[in-house]
């Protein structure tokens, strides 16, 4: 009888401890900032930011217009950075995308502006990724570039419908000077 009581008490306290242990392994992911980093000739080196620090509805997002000056040369290197600002400090998600590059694909769609985008990186299977791209500039023009990050695309060769899920979908205004 006494023994039963003790083991019951023990079991109760064990359950209580298990229940109250703080679970630190859970994190919700929010991409809130996408940075387009362009470098060109003549020392051109500039970051353009798409940012919505509170997540959710993006009607209050701030977007830097991408302006490519005439002095920047005809080909520019582009590097994408992705952040989560809901964490303190802000979390850089770019490395994780690179680490899992065979299940990620960035797709660029330029409208209006005279800019060509070519992939400049490959994943473990030799397929494109799109974190690194080369932008070729044409005549002066204005328009926009839409960048989508696809997760687990089913067909990396079909840029119109790669499948999988869209992790982000952002559009920058673009001016070629």
């Amino acid at each position, binding site marked *: 009888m006494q023994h039963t009581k003790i083991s019951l008490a023990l079991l109760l306290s064990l359950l209580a401890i298990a229940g109250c242990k703080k679970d630190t392994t859970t994190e*919700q992911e929010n991409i809130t900032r996408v940075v387009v980093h362009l470098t060109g000739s003549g020392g051109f080196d500039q970051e353009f930011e798409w940012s919505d620090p509170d997540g959710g509805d993006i009607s209050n997002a701030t977007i830097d217009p991408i302006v490519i000056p005439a002095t920047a040369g005809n080909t520019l290197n582009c590097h994408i950075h992705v952040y989560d600002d809901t964490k303190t400090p802000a979390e850089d*998600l770019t490395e994780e995308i690179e680490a899992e590059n065979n299940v990620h694909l960035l797709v660029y769609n330029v409208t209006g502006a005279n800019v060509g985008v070519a992939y400049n990186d490959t994943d473990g299977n030799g397929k494109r990724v799109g974190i690194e791209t080369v932008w070729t500039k044409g005549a002066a023009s204005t328009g926009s570039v839409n960048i989508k990050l696809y997760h687990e695309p089913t067909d990396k060769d079909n840029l119109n419908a790669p*499948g999988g899920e869209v992790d982000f979908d952002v559009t920058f205004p673009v001016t070629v000077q």
Partner: protein
Amino acid sequence: MFNSKACTAGLCLLCVVGALRGQDCHLPLRGHVVEAGSNEPLAFASVYIPEAHKGTTTDESGYYAIPNLCENTTYTVEVSHVECAHFTQMVRLTENAETDFHLNHNAVLQEVVVHEKATAPAATQAESNVSKADLQAGQGVNLGETLKRLPGVTTLNTGATISKPVIQGLHSNRIAIVNNNVVLEGQQWGSEHAPEIDPFSADKITVVKGAAGVRYGVGAMGGAIVLEPAALRDSAGWGGWVAAGGFYNGRGALLAGATDWHLPGSSLTFRVQGTAKRSGNLRAPDYYLGNTGLAEYDFSTMAGWKTRRWNHEISLSTFNQQLGILRAAHIEDTTTFGAAIRSDVPLNNRDEFSWRISRPYQLIQHNLIKYRTSLRISEKWKFSGQYAWQYNNRREFDAHPPLSDPQDLLHKSQLSFRIWTNSLDAALEHYPIRHWQGGMGVQAIQQLNYVGKGGLIPDYQTFGAGLWAMERWQRYPIPWEFEVGARYDYRYSNVTTSGNGNNNLDEQLQFGNVSGTAGAIYRFSHKTRLSLNSGLAWRPPHVNELYAEGVHHGSATYERGNPDFKPEKAWNTNLNFQHRDGRRDVSLTVYRNAIQDFIYLQPRQSFVRTIRGTFPLYTYTQNDAVLYGLDGSFSLPLTSFLSLESRVSMLRGYATKSDSASDANATAWLPLMPVDRFQYGFQWNGKGNEPAFVRVMAMTALRQTRYPAGSLYKAPPPGFTTLSLDAGYTFAIGKRKLELGLNLQNITNVRYREYLNFFRYYADEPGFNAALRAKYLFG
């Protein structure tokens, strides 16, 4: 209850004479006389009370009643039947008791068993019990699917594995699930959060339909599902059961067992019970449903001990489940969603069998510790007290692992909700005093809900208190019975931290409201009754409805709450007719549930842009609404072997006041109301009480034509008919028993989709399934 050892017939005659003075002599001696081995009713048995010079004979169902006997009096009862031994028994009468006599055929010296059972007061509200056959057939599937066989009960599904019970159109936070006397406190607000219940642990399941706020507290607006475990063994020794089952669809297997050990020479009894279940991908008629496997293990233990006046019970239980979610339904952007709903077959589906449960999946744990005690204060009064601790941990794992921390990918969930609940209940109840029976009680509850940062809902802590009283009047042989009850509940919540777009939230919410019930029963005879019940119940808006802000995975919608919502209040009236005569069983209920400030999701015909794309906006809306309908269940014997079985559920739900821009003259139908369903078939029973049965049932569900305009991406699925078969046979092996069961679902392998399944956009319901079960009962 009665002291037959000390009393001799002579002494008792004196008791009777002594007691006659000033005694209330309105009670009946009533019950059934049955054959002990087979439980077959014995017709034309004679029941005679020499002290009162009164007697009667049983009818064809074995029923007898001798009216106008005196309360708290011991009588000699002589029971005789031509085929059985004549015998005499002392019986002491109390109100609300039935006395059953189990006679042995042509037995000379075998014992006669007398069962005196306190009859639980009949509910004035509509109720349905899961029959033994349905309960057995349901073992191995989840609670929702078990209950779906009852009229007026259906399920709200998220795929084939997640199933929530819906009572007369209401579900989630609007119904109470009461397991072993404890109201389940989980994450019931979510449509993809199934109740954390192991149906194997229940010996009896009752569905109370309509507002049951007085009995079950805040939230029981649509009714309650009451699960009761088998009573602990009351004689010394071992006993228990082992069950095993196999399922064709999903290639599932289950193993369950329980054992009771009653210590000799004491009143101490222990029980351990466990269930383990595992199944793989289910198959629709044309393809496998990728990632729909399930793993579950549940364990519970109970201990009970009794003294002359005290009765203590302590129980611990744990429920653990891993549920795979159809990969093809995991959609987070509108483009993919559009393609998925246009396709007739699931896109991105792994059409192959696998046991593997991969992302997306849910990992759910529910632990409970309960202590309950009751004290018999006097002949008339009883006290009971209960403390319960519950911990619910729900983790949801997205299709893809989080981007951060790649070394630890598989162990990370995207969402986690944890709830700790402490509840304390105390009640003082009395047996009939001047024909009134009832009680009063208090409840206190504390609940802490913790969500990981960036979750869909904020964190909150709630404190609550409730006070209730309920009384019932019954005076035999007056055919009327009345019941009244009232309850007041108060809830205080402190809502903190952040959900999406709700940074730095710190709100204090207070809600208080009254629940009430009033009912009457009129008995035409002991076989036929009509009951009317009217009840009030309420619930405070859930934090989800107040503060939701974000994309809902799987449905590709952006959901937004409204912090100004008022509590929902329901006024439910139901009229229930019941006729039970042997195998003939007819039950018919009509109901109307008027809900003030009903909260539901309404499409806004506008869009919200997020970083993942543009999503249609759904906002939680509050309007007055009415739900009304009809539930029926019929079992009509055709021959001595065969009976006709039928169940009907029909429901209409509309908003009486609507802020939607639609045509003012059009009815504002509520979204997600169950479709009309009809079940019909035959049941064959072995002659008399032969332990064999076969039942073949067809179920027809109609197409839902009543839904809010613009609320659906795809028209409701067409109606369908499925065919099922249940069969059972029980072997007696000495005192032990072996129960065998077979049930076949969707026999014709029909391709269909359910309106109340969120995954109807993506895939068909599972096809043909066969389940074979064996249960061995010992001791």
